[in-house]
Protein backbone atom coordinates (compact mmCIF):
# COMPACT_ATOMS: atom_id res chain seq x y z
CA UNK A 1 0.00 0.00 0.00
CA UNK A 2 1.58 3.27 -1.16
CA UNK A 3 0.43 6.35 0.70
CA UNK A 4 1.40 9.81 -0.51
CA UNK A 5 1.53 12.40 2.25
CA UNK A 6 1.34 15.80 0.57
CA UNK A 7 4.39 17.92 1.28
CA UNK A 8 3.69 21.60 1.78
CA UNK A 9 4.51 24.26 4.35
CA UNK A 10 2.52 22.63 7.15
CA UNK A 11 3.85 21.65 10.53
CA UNK A 12 4.07 18.31 12.30
CA UNK A 13 3.89 15.96 9.29
CA UNK A 14 6.48 13.67 10.87
CA UNK A 15 3.90 12.25 13.29
CA UNK A 16 1.63 11.29 10.39
CA UNK A 17 4.51 9.46 8.69
CA UNK A 18 5.35 7.63 11.92
CA UNK A 19 1.69 6.65 12.43
CA UNK A 20 1.58 5.20 8.90
CA UNK A 21 4.80 3.31 9.65
CA UNK A 22 3.25 1.85 12.82
CA UNK A 23 0.27 0.66 10.75
CA UNK A 24 2.53 -0.97 8.17
CA UNK A 25 1.77 1.37 5.26
CA UNK A 26 4.49 2.62 2.95
CA UNK A 27 4.08 6.37 3.33
CA UNK A 28 6.17 9.02 1.62
CA UNK A 29 6.22 12.76 1.94
CA UNK A 30 6.00 14.24 -1.57
CA UNK A 31 4.84 17.18 -3.64
CA UNK A 32 5.47 15.40 -6.95
CA UNK A 33 2.33 15.29 -9.14
CA UNK A 34 2.99 11.87 -10.67
CA UNK A 35 3.87 10.22 -7.36
CA UNK A 36 0.74 11.60 -5.73
CA UNK A 37 -1.47 10.65 -8.70
CA UNK A 38 -0.39 7.03 -8.81
CA UNK A 39 -0.37 6.38 -5.05
CA UNK A 40 -3.13 4.19 -3.56
CA UNK A 41 -4.11 6.69 -0.88
CA UNK A 42 -3.39 10.35 -0.28
CA UNK A 43 -3.09 12.09 3.08
CA UNK A 44 -3.26 15.88 3.34
CA UNK A 45 -1.94 16.68 6.82
CA UNK A 46 -1.53 20.08 8.33
CA UNK A 47 -0.99 22.40 11.16
CA UNK A 48 -0.52 26.08 10.58
CA UNK A 49 -2.34 29.01 9.11
CA UNK A 50 -4.82 28.81 6.21
CA UNK A 51 -3.87 31.76 3.97
CA UNK A 52 -0.13 30.96 3.97
CA UNK A 53 -0.89 27.32 3.23
CA UNK A 54 -3.27 28.17 0.34
CA UNK A 55 -0.72 30.56 -1.17
CA UNK A 56 1.92 27.84 -1.07
CA UNK A 57 -0.41 25.24 -2.63
CA UNK A 58 -1.43 27.62 -5.44
CA UNK A 59 2.14 28.59 -6.27
CA UNK A 60 2.91 24.92 -6.86
CA UNK A 61 -0.47 24.20 -8.51
CA UNK A 62 -1.09 21.58 -5.84
CA UNK A 63 -4.58 23.08 -5.42
CA UNK A 64 -5.55 21.85 -8.88
CA UNK A 65 -4.04 18.45 -8.26
CA UNK A 66 -5.84 17.96 -4.93
CA UNK A 67 -9.24 18.78 -6.45
CA UNK A 68 -8.72 16.34 -9.33
CA UNK A 69 -7.70 13.14 -7.52
CA UNK A 70 -9.74 9.92 -7.67
CA UNK A 71 -8.25 7.73 -4.95
CA UNK A 72 -9.26 7.86 -1.26
CA UNK A 73 -8.05 11.17 0.13
CA UNK A 74 -7.80 12.14 3.79
CA UNK A 75 -7.38 15.71 5.06
CA UNK A 76 -6.26 16.16 8.66
CA UNK A 77 -6.74 19.26 10.87
CA UNK A 78 -5.78 22.26 8.69
CA UNK A 79 -6.14 19.77 5.81
CA UNK A 80 -9.89 19.55 6.59
CA UNK A 81 -10.23 23.33 6.73
CA UNK A 82 -8.40 23.81 3.41
CA UNK A 83 -10.77 21.33 1.73
CA UNK A 84 -13.69 23.61 2.66
CA UNK A 85 -14.91 26.59 0.68
CA UNK A 86 -13.75 29.49 2.78
CA UNK A 87 -11.97 30.14 6.06
CA UNK A 88 -12.39 33.14 8.35
CA UNK A 89 -8.68 32.87 9.04
CA UNK A 90 -7.40 35.89 7.10
CA UNK A 91 -10.55 35.67 4.90
CA UNK A 92 -9.10 32.84 2.81
CA UNK A 93 -10.69 31.20 -0.22
CA UNK A 94 -9.93 27.49 0.15
CA UNK A 95 -10.11 24.46 -2.16
CA UNK A 96 -13.90 24.13 -2.17
CA UNK A 97 -14.21 20.33 -2.17
CA UNK A 98 -16.77 20.74 0.63
CA UNK A 99 -19.17 23.70 0.22
CA UNK A 100 -18.76 24.51 3.91
CA UNK A 101 -17.47 27.57 5.73
CA UNK A 102 -14.73 27.52 8.37
CA UNK A 103 -15.27 29.86 11.31
CA UNK A 104 -13.39 30.95 14.40
CA UNK A 105 -14.58 29.73 17.81
CA UNK A 106 -16.16 32.59 19.79
CA UNK A 107 -14.20 33.70 22.89
CA UNK A 108 -16.90 32.40 25.30
CA UNK A 109 -14.56 29.58 26.35
CA UNK A 110 -10.83 29.01 26.06
CA UNK A 111 -9.54 29.07 22.49
CA UNK A 112 -7.80 27.07 21.02
CA UNK A 113 -9.90 24.01 21.73
CA UNK A 114 -7.08 21.80 23.06
CA UNK A 115 -7.50 18.27 24.32
CA UNK A 116 -9.59 15.13 24.02
CA UNK A 117 -13.20 15.35 22.94
CA UNK A 118 -15.65 12.65 21.88
CA UNK A 119 -17.15 11.95 18.46
CA UNK A 120 -20.94 12.07 18.10
CA UNK A 121 -23.55 11.29 15.44
CA UNK A 122 -21.19 8.88 13.71
CA UNK A 123 -22.24 7.73 10.25
CA UNK A 124 -19.58 6.32 7.96
CA UNK A 125 -17.66 3.09 7.30
CA UNK A 126 -14.58 5.17 8.10
CA UNK A 127 -15.74 5.18 11.73
CA UNK A 128 -16.50 1.47 12.01
CA UNK A 129 -15.61 0.13 15.45
CA UNK A 130 -16.08 3.50 17.15
CA UNK A 131 -18.88 4.85 19.36
CA UNK A 132 -19.93 8.20 20.77
CA UNK A 133 -17.59 7.54 23.68
CA UNK A 134 -14.59 7.43 21.35
CA UNK A 135 -12.25 10.34 22.09
CA UNK A 136 -9.90 12.11 19.68
CA UNK A 137 -7.24 14.77 20.24
CA UNK A 138 -7.97 18.31 19.08
CA UNK A 139 -5.82 21.43 18.76
CA UNK A 140 -7.60 24.14 16.76
CA UNK A 141 -9.12 27.62 16.87
CA UNK A 142 -11.21 27.34 13.68
CA UNK A 143 -13.92 24.78 12.88
CA UNK A 144 -16.03 23.64 9.93
CA UNK A 145 -19.77 24.14 10.34
CA UNK A 146 -22.06 21.13 10.40
CA UNK A 147 -23.61 20.21 7.03
CA UNK A 148 -25.80 17.08 7.16
CA UNK A 149 -24.85 16.28 3.55
CA UNK A 150 -21.15 15.91 4.36
CA UNK A 151 -20.68 15.77 8.15
CA UNK A 152 -20.10 12.13 9.18
CA UNK A 153 -19.38 12.90 12.85
CA UNK A 154 -19.61 15.92 15.12
CA UNK A 155 -17.90 17.02 18.32
CA UNK A 156 -19.16 19.60 20.78
CA UNK A 157 -17.24 22.61 22.05
CA UNK A 158 -19.50 25.56 22.82
CA UNK A 159 -21.60 24.16 19.93
CA UNK A 160 -21.52 21.24 17.50
CA UNK A 161 -18.97 21.35 14.71
CA UNK A 162 -17.87 18.94 11.96
CA UNK A 163 -15.46 16.40 13.45
CA UNK A 164 -15.27 14.49 10.16
CA UNK A 165 -16.44 15.17 6.62
CA UNK A 166 -16.98 12.93 3.61
CA UNK A 167 -17.82 13.52 -0.04
CA UNK A 168 -17.04 11.01 -2.82
CA UNK A 169 -13.39 9.97 -2.35
CA UNK A 170 -12.63 12.86 0.00
CA UNK A 171 -12.53 12.34 3.77
CA UNK A 172 -11.37 14.81 6.37
CA UNK A 173 -10.93 15.00 10.12
CA UNK A 174 -10.44 18.04 12.36
CA UNK A 175 -8.71 16.16 15.22
CA UNK A 176 -5.34 14.45 14.91
CA UNK A 177 -5.80 10.70 14.32
CA UNK A 178 -2.01 10.24 14.46
CA UNK A 179 -2.14 11.45 18.09
CA UNK A 180 -5.46 9.91 19.12
CA UNK A 181 -4.26 6.60 20.53
CA UNK A 182 -6.25 3.48 19.51
CA UNK A 183 -9.22 5.51 18.27
CA UNK A 184 -7.00 7.37 15.82
CA UNK A 185 -5.40 4.14 14.70
CA UNK A 186 -8.83 2.63 14.04
CA UNK A 187 -9.76 5.59 11.81
CA UNK A 188 -6.45 5.48 9.92
CA UNK A 189 -6.74 1.70 9.49
CA UNK A 190 -10.29 2.05 8.19
CA UNK A 191 -9.05 4.69 5.75
CA UNK A 192 -6.24 2.43 4.53
CA UNK A 193 -8.81 -0.35 4.04
CA UNK A 194 -11.19 1.77 1.93
Amino acid at each position, binding site marked *: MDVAVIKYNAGNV*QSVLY*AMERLGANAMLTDDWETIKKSDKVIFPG*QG*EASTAMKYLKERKLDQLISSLDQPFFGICLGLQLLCEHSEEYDTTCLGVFPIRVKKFPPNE*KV*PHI*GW*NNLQQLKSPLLEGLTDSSYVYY*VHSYYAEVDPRYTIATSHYMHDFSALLHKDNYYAMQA*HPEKSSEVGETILTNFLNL
Partner: protein
Amino acid sequence: MLTKRIIPCLDVMNGRTVKGVNFVQLRDAGDPVELGSIYAQEGADELVYLDITATVEKRKTLVDLVTRVAKTVNIPFTVGGGISNVDDVKALLNAGADKISINSAAVKNPKAVDEMAREFGSQCIVVAIDTKNIDGIDFVHTHGGRKPTVLQTREWAKEVTDRGAGEILLTSMDHDGVKNGFANEITADLSSLLAIPIIASGGAGKMEHFKEVFTAGKADAALAASIFHFKEIPIPELKKYLEIEGLSIRK
Protein backbone atom coordinates in the same frame (compact mmCIF):
# COMPACT_ATOMS: atom_id res chain seq x y z
CA MET B 1 -17.33 17.10 25.71
CA LEU B 2 -13.80 18.33 26.27
CA THR B 3 -12.12 16.29 29.00
CA LYS B 4 -9.72 17.13 31.82
CA ARG B 5 -6.23 15.85 31.02
CA ILE B 6 -3.92 13.70 33.15
CA ILE B 7 -0.26 14.20 32.26
CA PRO B 8 2.67 12.19 33.64
CA CYS B 9 5.99 14.04 33.56
CA LEU B 10 9.24 12.21 32.84
CA ASP B 11 12.60 13.72 33.75
CA VAL B 12 15.36 12.70 31.37
CA MET B 13 19.12 13.14 31.38
CA ASN B 14 21.29 12.08 28.46
CA GLY B 15 18.32 10.29 26.95
CA ARG B 16 17.47 8.29 30.10
CA THR B 17 14.75 8.79 32.72
CA VAL B 18 16.33 9.82 35.98
CA LYS B 19 13.74 9.66 38.72
CA GLY B 20 13.37 6.11 39.93
CA VAL B 21 10.45 4.11 38.68
CA ASN B 22 9.14 0.82 39.92
CA PHE B 23 7.14 -0.53 37.04
CA VAL B 24 7.53 -4.27 37.18
CA GLN B 25 6.59 -4.64 33.53
CA LEU B 26 9.44 -2.38 32.39
CA ARG B 27 12.34 -4.19 30.84
CA ASP B 28 14.45 -1.08 31.09
CA ALA B 29 13.38 1.30 33.84
CA GLY B 30 15.50 4.06 32.38
CA ASP B 31 14.04 4.01 28.88
CA PRO B 32 11.85 7.09 28.45
CA VAL B 33 10.24 5.69 25.32
CA GLU B 34 9.12 2.45 26.94
CA LEU B 35 7.84 4.26 30.02
CA GLY B 36 5.97 6.76 27.84
CA SER B 37 4.34 3.92 25.89
CA ILE B 38 3.14 2.27 29.06
CA TYR B 39 1.61 5.52 30.30
CA ALA B 40 -0.09 5.97 26.92
CA GLN B 41 -1.55 2.45 27.14
CA GLU B 42 -2.70 3.12 30.70
CA GLY B 43 -4.71 6.11 29.55
CA ALA B 44 -2.43 9.11 30.06
CA ASP B 45 -3.81 11.95 27.93
CA GLU B 46 -0.45 13.52 27.14
CA LEU B 47 3.17 13.21 28.22
CA VAL B 48 5.74 15.80 29.21
CA TYR B 49 9.45 15.05 28.82
CA LEU B 50 11.62 17.38 30.82
CA ASP B 51 15.28 17.26 29.84
CA ILE B 52 17.72 18.10 32.60
CA THR B 53 20.90 17.34 30.66
CA ALA B 54 23.39 20.16 31.07
CA THR B 55 25.94 19.54 28.33
CA VAL B 56 26.75 21.13 24.99
CA GLU B 57 25.51 17.97 23.28
CA LYS B 58 22.12 18.59 24.82
CA ARG B 59 20.14 19.50 21.73
CA LYS B 60 21.32 16.49 19.77
CA THR B 61 20.42 14.00 22.51
CA LEU B 62 17.05 15.70 22.93
CA VAL B 63 16.27 15.54 19.21
CA ASP B 64 17.22 11.84 19.24
CA LEU B 65 14.89 11.25 22.16
CA VAL B 66 12.01 13.14 20.53
CA THR B 67 12.45 11.09 17.35
CA ARG B 68 12.29 7.83 19.28
CA VAL B 69 9.25 8.92 21.28
CA ALA B 70 7.40 10.17 18.19
CA LYS B 71 7.97 6.86 16.38
CA THR B 72 6.45 4.86 19.22
CA VAL B 73 4.01 6.89 21.29
CA ASN B 74 0.52 7.54 19.85
CA ILE B 75 -0.56 10.41 22.12
CA PRO B 76 0.64 14.04 22.17
CA PHE B 77 3.82 14.94 24.01
CA THR B 78 5.57 18.12 25.09
CA VAL B 79 9.28 18.49 25.49
CA GLY B 80 11.00 21.03 27.70
CA GLY B 81 14.29 21.83 29.36
CA GLY B 82 16.82 24.38 28.19
CA ILE B 83 14.95 25.41 25.04
CA SER B 84 15.83 29.00 24.29
CA ASN B 85 15.35 29.98 20.65
CA VAL B 86 13.41 29.42 17.43
CA ASP B 87 16.05 27.03 16.06
CA ASP B 88 15.75 24.76 19.12
CA VAL B 89 11.98 24.69 18.70
CA LYS B 90 12.18 23.99 14.98
CA ALA B 91 14.53 21.02 15.49
CA LEU B 92 12.28 19.48 18.14
CA LEU B 93 8.98 20.01 16.28
CA ASN B 94 10.48 18.63 13.07
CA ALA B 95 11.60 15.55 15.00
CA GLY B 96 7.97 14.95 15.98
CA ALA B 97 7.31 16.80 19.27
CA ASP B 98 3.77 18.21 19.47
CA LYS B 99 4.62 21.08 21.78
CA ILE B 100 7.65 22.59 23.44
CA SER B 101 7.80 24.22 26.81
CA ILE B 102 10.04 27.14 27.78
CA ASN B 103 10.69 28.48 31.24
CA SER B 104 13.85 30.40 32.22
CA ALA B 105 14.53 31.42 28.61
CA ALA B 106 11.17 33.24 28.45
CA VAL B 107 11.98 35.18 31.61
CA LYS B 108 15.40 36.07 30.25
CA ASN B 109 14.08 37.01 26.81
CA PRO B 110 10.28 37.44 26.73
CA LYS B 111 10.35 38.23 22.99
CA ALA B 112 11.31 34.59 22.37
CA VAL B 113 7.67 33.69 23.16
CA ASP B 114 6.42 36.06 20.45
CA GLU B 115 8.93 34.74 17.94
CA MET B 116 8.14 31.09 18.62
CA ALA B 117 4.37 31.64 18.53
CA ARG B 118 4.57 33.58 15.27
CA GLU B 119 6.78 30.98 13.63
CA PHE B 120 5.05 27.78 14.78
CA GLY B 121 1.64 28.83 16.14
CA SER B 122 0.53 29.31 19.75
CA GLN B 123 -0.83 25.77 19.95
CA CYS B 124 2.66 24.30 20.33
CA ILE B 125 4.18 26.86 22.70
CA VAL B 126 3.77 26.05 26.40
CA VAL B 127 5.21 28.52 28.88
CA ALA B 128 6.20 26.85 32.14
CA ILE B 129 6.03 29.07 35.22
CA ASP B 130 7.53 28.08 38.56
CA THR B 131 5.85 30.09 41.28
CA LYS B 132 6.61 30.57 44.96
CA ASN B 133 4.80 32.65 47.55
CA ILE B 134 7.01 35.12 49.40
CA ASP B 135 5.33 37.05 52.22
CA GLY B 136 1.92 36.69 50.64
CA ILE B 137 2.94 37.59 47.08
CA ASP B 138 3.44 35.03 44.29
CA PHE B 139 6.72 35.48 42.45
CA VAL B 140 8.08 33.72 39.37
CA HIS B 141 11.20 31.64 40.00
CA THR B 142 13.65 30.22 37.48
CA HIS B 143 16.33 27.54 37.37
CA GLY B 144 14.16 24.80 38.76
CA GLY B 145 12.60 27.15 41.28
CA ARG B 146 15.91 28.11 42.88
CA LYS B 147 16.24 31.65 41.54
CA PRO B 148 13.65 34.27 42.49
CA THR B 149 12.72 37.00 40.00
CA VAL B 150 10.95 40.31 40.45
CA LEU B 151 8.09 39.13 38.23
CA GLN B 152 4.74 38.55 39.88
CA THR B 153 3.15 35.30 38.74
CA ARG B 154 -0.29 36.58 37.65
CA GLU B 155 1.21 39.48 35.69
CA TRP B 156 3.82 37.29 34.04
CA ALA B 157 1.21 34.70 33.06
CA LYS B 158 -0.90 37.45 31.48
CA GLU B 159 2.14 38.83 29.64
CA VAL B 160 3.20 35.49 28.11
CA THR B 161 -0.41 34.84 27.08
CA ASP B 162 -0.48 38.19 25.28
CA ARG B 163 2.84 37.30 23.68
CA GLY B 164 1.35 34.14 22.20
CA ALA B 165 1.73 31.26 24.66
CA GLY B 166 -0.81 28.51 23.93
CA GLU B 167 -0.84 26.94 27.39
CA ILE B 168 0.60 27.65 30.84
CA LEU B 169 2.26 24.92 32.87
CA LEU B 170 2.08 26.26 36.42
CA THR B 171 4.26 24.59 39.04
CA SER B 172 3.92 25.69 42.64
CA MET B 173 7.29 25.37 44.35
CA ASP B 174 5.48 25.63 47.69
CA HIS B 175 3.50 22.49 46.90
CA ASP B 176 5.94 20.51 44.75
CA GLY B 177 7.13 17.31 46.43
CA VAL B 178 4.96 17.88 49.52
CA LYS B 179 2.05 15.72 48.30
CA ASN B 180 -0.44 17.91 50.09
CA GLY B 181 -2.46 18.92 47.06
CA PHE B 182 -2.05 21.35 44.16
CA ALA B 183 -1.96 25.15 44.51
CA ASN B 184 -5.66 25.47 43.80
CA GLU B 185 -6.04 29.14 44.54
CA ILE B 186 -3.48 30.57 42.15
CA THR B 187 -4.35 27.92 39.55
CA ALA B 188 -8.00 29.03 39.67
CA ASP B 189 -6.95 32.68 39.47
CA LEU B 190 -4.90 32.09 36.33
CA SER B 191 -7.56 29.89 34.77
CA SER B 192 -10.19 32.62 35.26
CA LEU B 193 -7.85 35.42 34.22
CA LEU B 194 -6.52 33.84 31.02
CA ALA B 195 -8.19 32.54 27.86
CA ILE B 196 -5.73 29.65 27.46
CA PRO B 197 -5.56 26.25 29.20
CA ILE B 198 -3.74 25.91 32.53
CA ILE B 199 -1.81 22.75 33.39
CA ALA B 200 -1.41 22.49 37.17
CA SER B 201 1.70 20.85 38.57
CA GLY B 202 3.17 20.19 42.00
CA GLY B 203 1.61 18.68 45.08
CA ALA B 204 -0.32 15.63 43.89
CA GLY B 205 -0.39 12.99 46.61
CA LYS B 206 -3.92 11.57 46.57
CA MET B 207 -6.62 11.06 43.96
CA GLU B 208 -8.73 13.71 45.76
CA HIS B 209 -6.07 16.30 44.94
CA PHE B 210 -6.77 15.84 41.22
CA LYS B 211 -10.49 16.29 41.77
CA GLU B 212 -9.81 19.47 43.77
CA VAL B 213 -7.50 20.99 41.17
CA PHE B 214 -10.04 20.31 38.39
CA THR B 215 -12.95 21.76 40.40
CA ALA B 216 -11.75 24.40 42.91
CA GLY B 217 -8.52 24.93 40.93
CA LYS B 218 -10.35 25.15 37.54
CA ALA B 219 -7.32 23.48 35.90
CA ASP B 220 -7.63 22.12 32.37
CA ALA B 221 -4.95 19.50 32.97
CA ALA B 222 -2.97 18.13 35.90
CA LEU B 223 0.63 16.99 35.79
CA ALA B 224 2.45 14.72 38.21
CA ALA B 225 5.62 12.65 38.28
CA SER B 226 6.57 10.49 41.24
CA ILE B 227 3.09 9.34 42.25
CA PHE B 228 2.75 7.82 38.77
CA HIS B 229 6.33 6.53 38.55
CA PHE B 230 6.07 4.83 41.93
CA LYS B 231 2.57 3.59 41.16
CA GLU B 232 1.14 5.23 44.25
CA ILE B 233 -1.74 6.24 42.00
CA PRO B 234 -2.24 4.10 38.89
CA ILE B 235 -3.64 6.19 36.03
CA PRO B 236 -6.56 3.84 35.22
CA GLU B 237 -7.75 4.00 38.86
CA LEU B 238 -7.36 7.77 38.95
CA LYS B 239 -9.42 8.20 35.80
CA LYS B 240 -12.11 5.84 37.07
CA TYR B 241 -12.26 7.78 40.35
CA LEU B 242 -12.54 11.16 38.60
CA GLU B 243 -15.26 9.86 36.33
CA ILE B 244 -17.29 8.59 39.30
CA GLU B 245 -16.79 12.01 40.89
CA GLY B 246 -18.55 13.50 37.87
CA LEU B 247 -15.63 14.98 35.97
CA SER B 248 -15.35 14.80 32.21
CA ILE B 249 -12.60 12.24 31.62
CA ARG B 250 -11.44 10.35 28.52
CA LYS B 251 -12.19 6.65 28.88
